[in-house]
C-alpha cells in the first residue's frame, strides 16, 4: 500500500540562473503548473507526481552531474531534458548510458535525435534546419515584387544557430532557403557569445542594402539587433528572429517601435484552440503578467501532455512499454495532434508570427492567420 503511494518522480534541470534563465523561467512556470494540476487530477497511475527540477546554472558540466544524480541517487522514474541545445548536448550521453527515455521539450537537434535512435522524444514541432522554413514558405506565397531581393544573416556562434543557418546533412537551413528563393546573400556574419554591441553588424547589412535580415541568435542579442536596426534608421522589409522564438517573450514588447514588424516562428498559437493552449495563455496572462504566450511554454506543456497520455495509456512506467506506446499513438497536445516519427520528433508544422502594434499576430499559413502581414 505504502509502496503504491510513493510519488512518481520526474526529474530534469533548467538554467534558472545564468544566460539561459530567461527561457528556463517559462519552462519552470509551466512545469510547476502542470505538477499541481496533474496531482489535482489524481496523479499518474494513481500515484502522486513530484517534479524534481534542479538549477544547472546554464552550465553543461553542472547539468551532467545533476543528471547523474537524478538517475542514480534520486532514481527518477521519468526524465525531462534541460533547456537549450547547449546544455542538452552534454547531458545526452549520460542519459543514454542509463537506457532511459528522454522526454525532450527542452531543445532541438537533428544530430542528437538521429544519434539517440528513438530513445529521445521531442516536442519541438520543427528541428533546427526548419526554423526559417515558415518565413520562406510565406515569402513564396507573396507576389514576386513583394519578395526580398538581398538578404543579410547574423548567426550566433553556437551549435544550434549554426545548424539553423547551414542545415543538417544537406537538408534545410537558412542559406539553402535563401538560395532557393532566389535571394542574393549579401551579408553572412557570425558573432560570438557575449557580444555587447551590434552596431558594426547592422552597419554591414545596411551598407549592403539588405532588405531582409535574418537574426539567428538568442533573446538578448535579438533585442539588441532589433533596437540597433531601429536606431540606425534602417528599415529592412523582412526582419526575422529566426533562431529562438523570442518575439513571444515578455521583453520583446518593451522595445517599443523597434519591436514592430519582426517575424518569428512558433509551433502553435492559442487561437488554434489546441487542447490546453487557451488555458495556458490565460495562466501566463494572469500569473506571469505576460500578454503573449512564449513558444517555450507551448513546447513545455506539450511534453508534459505527452508524458501524461503515455503513462496513463501504457499504464506503466516501464521504459520499453512506454516507448512502444508512444510510437504507435497519436497525442492530443497544445501543439495539436501529433505523432512521432522514427527518430522521436513530430512532423513539421510551424506558424509564422509577426509583431504588430505591440502584439504577435499569426500571418501564415493562411488557415490559421489572425492578421495580414504588414510589408512596406
Amino acid at each position, binding site marked *: 500500500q505504502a509502496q503504491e503511494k510513493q510519488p512518481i518522480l520526474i526529474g530534469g534541470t533548467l538554467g534558472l540562473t545564468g544566460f539561459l534563465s530567461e527561457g528556463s523561467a517559462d519552462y519552470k512556470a509551466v512545469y510547476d503548473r502542470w505538477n499541481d494540476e496533474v496531482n489535482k487530477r489524481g496523479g499518474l497511475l494513481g500515484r502522486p507526481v513530484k517534479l524534481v527540477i534542479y538549477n544547472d546554472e546554464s552550465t553543461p558540466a553542472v547539468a551532467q552531474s545533476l543528471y547523474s544524480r537524478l538517475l542514480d541517487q534520486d532514481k527518477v522514474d521519468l526524465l525531462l531534458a534541460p533547456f537549450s541545445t547547449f546544455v542538452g548536448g552534454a547531458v545526452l550521453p549520460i542519459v543514454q548510458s542509463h537506457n532511459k527515455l528522454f522526454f525532450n521539450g527542452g531543445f532541438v537537434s537533428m544530430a542528437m535525435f538521429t544519434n539517440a535512435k528513438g530513445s529521445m522524444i521531442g516536442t519541438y514541432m520543427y528541428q533546427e534546419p526548419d526554423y526559417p522554413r515558415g518565413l520562406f514558405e510565406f515569402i513564396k506565397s507573396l507576389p514576386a515584387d513583394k519578395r526580398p531581393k538581398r538578404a543579410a544573416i547574423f548567426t550566433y556562434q553556437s551549435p544550434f544557430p549554426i545548424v539553423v543557418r547551414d542545415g543538417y546533412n544537406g537538408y534545410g537551413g537558412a542559406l539553402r532557403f535563401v538560395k532557393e528563393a532566389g535571394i542574393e546573400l549579401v551579408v553572412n556574419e557570425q558573432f560570438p557569445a*557575449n557580444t555587447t554591441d551590434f552596431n558594426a553588424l547592422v552597419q554591414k547589412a545596411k551598407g549592403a542594402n539588405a532588405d531582409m535580415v535574418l537574426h539567428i541568435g538568442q533573446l538578448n542579442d535579438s533585442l539588441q539587433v532589433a533596437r540597433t536596426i531601429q536606431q540606425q534608421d534602417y528599415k529592412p522589409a523582412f526582419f526575422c528572429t529566426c533562431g529562438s522564438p523570442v518575439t513571444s517573450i515578455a521583453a520583446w514588447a518593451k522595445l517599443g517601435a523597434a519591436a514592430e514588424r519582426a517575424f518569428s516562428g512558433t509551433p502553435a498559437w492559442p487561437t488554434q484552440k489546441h487542447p490546453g493552449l487557451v488555458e495556458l495563455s490565460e495562466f501566463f496572462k494572469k500569473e506571469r503578467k505576460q500578454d503573449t504566450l512564449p513558444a517555450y511554454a507551448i513546447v513545455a506543456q506539450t511534453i508534459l501532455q505527452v508524458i501524461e497520455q503515455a503513462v496513463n495509456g501504457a499504464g506503466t512506467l516501464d521504459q520499453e512499454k512506454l516507448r512502444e506506446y508512444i510510437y504507435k499513438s497519436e497525442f492530443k497536445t497544445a501543439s495539436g495532434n501529433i505523432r512521432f516519427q522514427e527518430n522521436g520528433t513530430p512532423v513539421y508544422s510551424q506558424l509564422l508570427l509577426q509583431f504588430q502594434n505591440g502584439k504577435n499576430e499569426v500571418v501564415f499559413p493562411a488557415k490559421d492567420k489572425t492578421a495580414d502581414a504588414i510589408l512596406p
Partner: protein
Amino acid sequence: MGAQVLTVIIDGLLLGLIYAGIGLGLSLILGVMGVVNVAHSAFIMLGSYFAYELFRRAGIDPIISAALALPVFFLLGSVVYRTLITRVEFTGPTQGLIAMFGLMVLIENLGVIVWTTDARALTTHYTNTSFAIGPAVVAWVKVLAGGLALALIGAAWVFLHYTLTGRAIRAIGQDRDAAAVLGINVHQLLTILFGLGIACAGVAGVLLGMIYPFSPGGQVFWLAWAFLVVVLGGLGSVANTLVAGLVVGIIQTFAGAFVPFEFVYLILYTLLAVILIVRREGLTSVARRSI
C-alpha cells in the same frame, strides 16, 4: 569609404566613452585600494534597474536617474565599504577579491529574486530615435550616454587631480601610513573613494540601461570590458582610462567594419595584449623607480 570611416569613428568614440565610463569606478578602487572589485558589474546591474524602476514607476527620465544614481550609489558604496571592505582590505588583495566575488553573486541573485531573470529594456521616447551627421546615422541614446560618461570622467579627473581631497585620496593609495601622519583621516577618505567607485558603477549602469537591454545576470559581460579598459589605461589613472576606453572603442568599430565580425574580438584582444606587453603598465607606463 569615407562615409564609412566617419561612421566608424563616431561609433568608436561613443562606444569608447561608454567603455571608459564602465571602467572608471573599477579603476579608482583597484588603483587606490588594491581591491579587485569584481562586484562592479553587479552594481552596474543595480544601476540599470535603478533607472528602469524610476522610469517605470515615476516616469523619471534616465538622464535624471543618472544624476540621482550618484548620491544613491555613493551611499550604497559607503555602506559596503564600512561593513565589508574595511575588514578585508588589510589582509591583502586576494581577500578583497573573495569578498567582492561573494558580493557579486549575492547581488546578482537577489536581483533575480526581485526582478526575475527576464530581460528588460528601457524604452523612452528618444530611445529609438537618431540623427544624421553627413552620411553617418547616430543614435541619440548613445550620444547622451557618451556625453554623460564624459562628464563623469571629467568630474572624477578634476576631483582627483585638482582638489586637495582628491590628491589626498591618491596619496593614500601610495602610502597609507604616511598619509595618516599628515592628519588625513584614511578611513573616511577611503569610504568616500569606495562610495565614488560604486557611484560610477551605478551611473554606468544607468547609461548602459539607456542603450542596451539588460537582465540581472547579463551585466557581468561588461566586466570584461571594464577590466580591459582599466589595465590598458593603467591603475587609478582617470585620464588614461578615458584614452584607453576610446582606443578600445575605435579598434572595435574599425575591426567591426573591415573584417568578419567573428574576428573582431580576437583582433581587439590581440592588439590590447600587444600594447600591454610593449608598454607593460598600459598607457601610463611611468618609469617608477623600484630599485
